[in-house]
């Protein structure tokens, strides 16, 4: 039985996990870099261990120090949070080999899903639509040309072991094929130590939709979709569930096939399947084999605590909640408040009351350092429907006081008031379209 967990992360997600552990009666060990010695997560945890200097590669990505800290503080398990080592097969392997439980999928799942071509093949097998394109490595320019003409431009080249936008190239005509083919292979090799690339039809005006699942290896439950189409340079700013563009028919289809995919994977833990939706077709992109920043919206609509269920699943003690799909109710929306400058937060008053949740690591007097992610707080509301969520979020933002540094609060307010956003008729290019007015 898991009695003590090290959280291999920082900031709000570390606090999120520690709070879950506390309410389950499990001890928690926080870790921190030298730059984070005033982190709120250190105060809330039962213990805190410094694992390195400010530089991420020497602290939050330092596998040896993190596992040592877990072992020597007598932890049974490690929760990776989001980002950092959460999808590192190397880390999962090291955790497992040191006799600790990794709270997340096992290394084989992570390895398999890390290969985007393999993931495409499996998704198709499960009955999901995948973007038209190749299901194996592209070996030559001529092979690419044949495919390109079959698919029609624009197309996108992707590193097969890639992720996070790196090593991707959009091509709009025959003339650019050869140059981009070579460059993409080079980049794939550089970033992911493997030159394999594949090609997909490029969608120009998609919605970003994702499906939240929880699986204990046998039972898979569906926690609905999230719409994350409001993005600035691929950084999500606003997420919501349900999506106004997903019909009940499409939702049922996605649910059936997504559950099937996770059953094929014998998936363990929380996972998200990402899709791009265009012209009423929802195309599989990839699986994020970890919990995501925007998980709270799914927690609200499903009344399921994803972090707690992850912990129970990893402890082979999955709860009654895993026996049947939860009823999804009402509407939830999250906005991310990001720092646009560094410095000390002189005043912080979060919105409180019904239908709002604030996940944050900041406080009055907290210093925002340049070393880490700029996200300061997530504000999540839960109301009857999308229009009420928008109004409630605006009301919450009017109560939010965050002074001392520049933030994107006003930009978020403008998006929430934007006619296109309010109408629900928009796509991932919304931010770019309205950027000049923000």
């Amino acid at each position, binding site marked *: 039985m898991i009695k003590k967990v090290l959280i291999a992360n920082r900031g709000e997600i570390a606090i999120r996990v520690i709070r879950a552990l506390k309410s389950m009666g499990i001890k928690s060990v926080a870790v921190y870099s*030298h730059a984070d010695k005033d982190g709120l997560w250190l105060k809330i945890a039962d213990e805190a*261990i410094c694992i*390195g200097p400010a530089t991420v590669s020497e602290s939050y990505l330092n596998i*040896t*120090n993190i596992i*040592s*800290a877990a072992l*020597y503080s007598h932890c049974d398990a490690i929760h990776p949070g989001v980002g950092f080592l959460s999808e590192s097969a190397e880390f999962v392997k*090291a955790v497992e080999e040191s006799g600790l439980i990794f709270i997340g999928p096992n290394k084989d799942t992570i390895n398999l899903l890390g290969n985007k071509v393999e993931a495409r093949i499996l998704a198709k097998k499960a009955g999901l639509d995948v973007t038209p394109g190749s299901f194996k490595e592209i070996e030559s320019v001529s092979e690419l040309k044949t495919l390109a003409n079959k698919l029609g431009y624009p197309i996108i080249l992707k590193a097969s072991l890639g992720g996070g936008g790196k090593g991707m190239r959009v091509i709009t005509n025959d003339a650019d094929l050869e140059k981009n083919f070579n460059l993409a292979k080079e980049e794939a090799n550089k970033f992911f130590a493997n030159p394999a690339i594949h090609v997909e039809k490029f969608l120009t005006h998609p919605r970003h939709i994702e499906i939240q699942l929880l699986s204990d290896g046998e039972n898979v439950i569906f926690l609905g979709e999230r719409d994350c189409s409001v993005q600035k340079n691929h950084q999500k700013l606003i997420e919501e569930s349900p999506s106004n563009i997903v019909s009940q028919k499409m939702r049922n289809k996605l649910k059936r096939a997504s559950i099937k995919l996770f059953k094929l994977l014998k998936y363990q833990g929380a996972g998200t399947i990402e899709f791009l939706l265009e012209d009423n077709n929802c195309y599989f992109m990839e699986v994020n084999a970890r919990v995501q920043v925007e998980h709270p919206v799914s927690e609200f609509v499903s009344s399921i605590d994803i972090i707690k269920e992850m912990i129970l699943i990893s402890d082979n003690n999955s709860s009654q909640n895993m026996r049947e799909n939860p009823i999804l109710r009402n509407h939830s929306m999250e906005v991310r408040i990001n720092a646009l400058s560094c410095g000390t937060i002189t005043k912080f008053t979060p919105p409180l009351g019904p239908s709002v949740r604030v996940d944050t690591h900041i406080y009055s007097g907290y210093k925002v350092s340049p070393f880490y992610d700029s996200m300061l707080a997530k504000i999540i509301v839960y109301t009857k429907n999308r229009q009420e969520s928008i109004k409630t979020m605006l009301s919450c933002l009017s109560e939010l006081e965050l002074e001392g540094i520049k933030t994107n609060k006003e930009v978020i307010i403008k998006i929430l008031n934007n006619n296109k956003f309010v109408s629900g008729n928009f796509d991932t290019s919304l931010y770019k379209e309205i950027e000049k007015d923000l």
Partner: protein
Amino acid sequence: MENLDIDKILDRFENSSICELEITYKDFQIKCKKNTTISQEITKEIVKTKKEEITTSEIKDEKIKTITSPIVGTFYRAPAPDANVYVEPNQEIKKGQPICIIEAMKMMNELESEFNCKIIEVLANSGQLVEYGQPLFKVELI
């Protein structure tokens, strides 16, 4: 000028905000001065103390160093349970000389001194978990 009473003048001076007074009348002369600005002096003293502290710590910084743990692990003063400790207080050691072991991931990492120095104090207990940056030894450069 009939009120040339010394007592009166001194009382007057005492209770006034005047800090220097000099009266000369015929062959009579009185000069008085108050010890003014106590608060200013205190301020100066504080400033002085601070400066001294800084100086001292600067001096210390030059000679006294703290060797901290570069990794997370278990601190051992000796290479094996029955072996002698690497270093003792007051012992002089050379640059590159091993001073302790930090065990991490079942690997024994020998920590070497980066300078010639004398061990003043051992700051961690053998067998104890040490975190990154935790002080292990206080040493004096030689």
